[in-house]
């Protein structure tokens, strides 16, 4: 029992990160119908920003000379906030300069551009920073003794912190969506773009802000997980598969589904690796894909998918 509980606890922090990435994917998909395959690499890039802010004078970073102007290493939470700001800028720039011009060209160009971004960011990260891993540190106490003992299982403060941060972010996001004029405009654009344009909403700007917020959310996820993993060019290659699976499981375009999907896949991963002897962490990816395909055959719209998910066939 305590082992089982332990595995649930272990899955929580992964689940929160998958959920944040899946939520970012979902927001973008809902607003623009684009599956941003580069979401993970964008989060990787912003994680590098966090790592840079943590150790600006590190001579192993390219451009360390002018980064030294940033002064002393920032505290972790400030570095993560900095990464989120970088995410806002990056997301807005990607929407404005890459995706917006392709908006009317059918499904192939956005997918192509997203993959192009994926390759470009990945390649540049390897070129500039090499494949060595960088530490960022966790914004929460993560010593060996920083934990709660619950029914014989260890619940680490870090896990609590990550899940709580995600919860706060979600509350803020839903307040933004449901209580502000900007959120109203965003929902209007999502539900009927032409209508929104006619009542005077600046659709382009709203979409840009949507992309920016999504990228910031991904940056938050990346910054949080960077405390557990390290920052490196390949840090997201595994996460993005789980995030894509989670977003699809919840029905692309459904925020609630994306969050639940994130935790479902994290739990499934932990349980498979924990209880099935021949499944290692790598192989869990294969089973994730299998589950995803089976689920799509049974329920093409995802668990929480609406007819809308299926109808946006383009």
């Amino acid at each position, binding site marked *: 029992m305590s082992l089982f509980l332990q595995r649930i606890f272990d899955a929580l922090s992964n689940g929160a990160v998958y959920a944040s990435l899946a939520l970012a994917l979902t927001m973008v998909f809902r607003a623009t119908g684009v*599956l941003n395959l580069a979401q993970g690499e964008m989060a990787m890039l912003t994680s590098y920003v966090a790592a840079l802010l943590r150790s600006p004078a590190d001579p192993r970073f390219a451009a360390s000379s002018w980064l030294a102007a940033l002064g002393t290493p920032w505290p972790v939470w400030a570095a993560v906030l900095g990464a989120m700001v970088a995410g806002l800028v990056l997301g807005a720039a990607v929407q404005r300069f890459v995706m917006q011009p392709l908006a009317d060209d059918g499904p192939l160009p956005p*997918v192509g551009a997203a993959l192009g971004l994926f*390759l470009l960011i990945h*390649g540049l990260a390897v070129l500039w920073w090499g494949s060595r891993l960088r530490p960022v540190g966790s914004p929460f106490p993560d010593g060996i003794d920083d934990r709660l003992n619950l029914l014989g299982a260890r619940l680490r403060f870090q896990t609590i912190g990550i899940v709580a941060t995600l919860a706060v972010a979600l509350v803020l996001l839903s307040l933004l969506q449901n209580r502000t004029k900007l959120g109203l405009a965003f929902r209007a654009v999502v539900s009927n773009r032409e209508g929104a344009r006619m009542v005077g909403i600046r659709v382009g700007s709203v979409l840009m802000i949507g992309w920016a917020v999504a990228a910031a959310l991904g940056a938050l996820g990346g910054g949080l997980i960077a405390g557990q993993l390290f920052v490196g060019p390949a840090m997201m290659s595994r996460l993005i598969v789980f995030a894509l699976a989670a977003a699809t499981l919840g029905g692309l375009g459904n925020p609630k589904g994306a969050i639940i999907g994130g935790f479902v896949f994290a739990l499934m991963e932990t349980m498979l690796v924990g209880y099935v002897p021949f499944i290692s962490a790598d192989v869990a990816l*294969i089973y994730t*894909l299998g589950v995803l395909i089976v689920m799509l055959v049974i329920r*093409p719209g995802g668990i929480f998918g609406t007819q809308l998910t299926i109808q946006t066939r383009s």
Partner: protein
Amino acid sequence: MTDLERPPVRPVDAEPMPPALRRPTEGLTTRDRLLSAVAVVLALIALAISGSPLIILRATEVAAFIVAFSGLHILSGRLGLISVGHGAFIGIGAVAAAHAIDDLSVPYLLAPLAGAAGAALFGVVIGVPSLRLPGSYLALLTLAVAMVLPIGLRQLDGPLGYRVEGDLIPPAWTGLAPGDDEIWQFALVLVVGAFIMAVVHGTVRGRFTRALVAVRDEPTAAAAFGLNVARIHLTGVAISAGLAGAAGGLILYASPLVAGEQYPFSLSVAMFALMVALGASKLWTSVPAALTVVLLPELLVRAGQAVWEPIVYGMVLLIMTRLSRGRGLVSLWEPKPNAIVSDRAGPPANKRPPGQPRPQHSGNPWLLTPEPPSTQS
């Protein structure tokens, strides 16, 4: 099916096509074509006799990738779907063929067939969910397959990969020395690959491909004409994946080793990038695409600049999607669809001819005068 059975016929008295719409081969006589074919064959034979084993291996890979790219052409250019995982489908074909040869005692010569069968089966599995979902779902699933396949192959056959136990030895009638295996393998790849491409070339101009295009452009109308949309869609996906799998079998002719590292995620994405960059609408783009996907990494590695490969492909994707609206390099030479129309029809109706003054609004709402320019943005 009545419309699909008839090939499209140009009326005899039709105006001559604008030059860009003509096939590049249109003015050639049979003799020209025969001569160029003979020249190509002679060049290939010269390559086989003089080339080092490495060059022959690369040439074999180019031939195999041409077949794989033709699969991508059918999927994207005809059926309008996106696969980001065709490199992985090659790998699936290769591993299926390797195990079919050793475990099911399939003759080595039939490796492309076994590979095609394996990959097509997998393509159907991936294709079924995409029947009822937006096009980007197939991109998502194939992307996931491309990411997962190297792990799967490592899991199946260990980190070093699988080596086929059978051998592909030149039969006595060829008169090749025992050391000249690769020439025989090269010849086999060329013959089988050319055969596959001939079949594809025939199919691409045939009824089935027109059905694919119909399903892509007007699924409802296609269904109304009695086409089984779901079956055609799935068959298209299966054929496309099967061609990639056949390419895997062809590669097996030349190198009996199958390992996850041969079919990494980057290979699949590079294939997708080249397809987007060159244009999926023309079958012949398979040739330059295959040359690039094989030779570019080789050149970059030799120059010690392998880091640049993803950057190059990424930039190519970003620039080409922007420039050509996803229709690729070939489309830049094609006339724009509405350019022809506007040549005949003059300026669009809503555009004021130059020099004519802007019509003034009288202020009387009941007069049929043009609306004043809107004050809202």
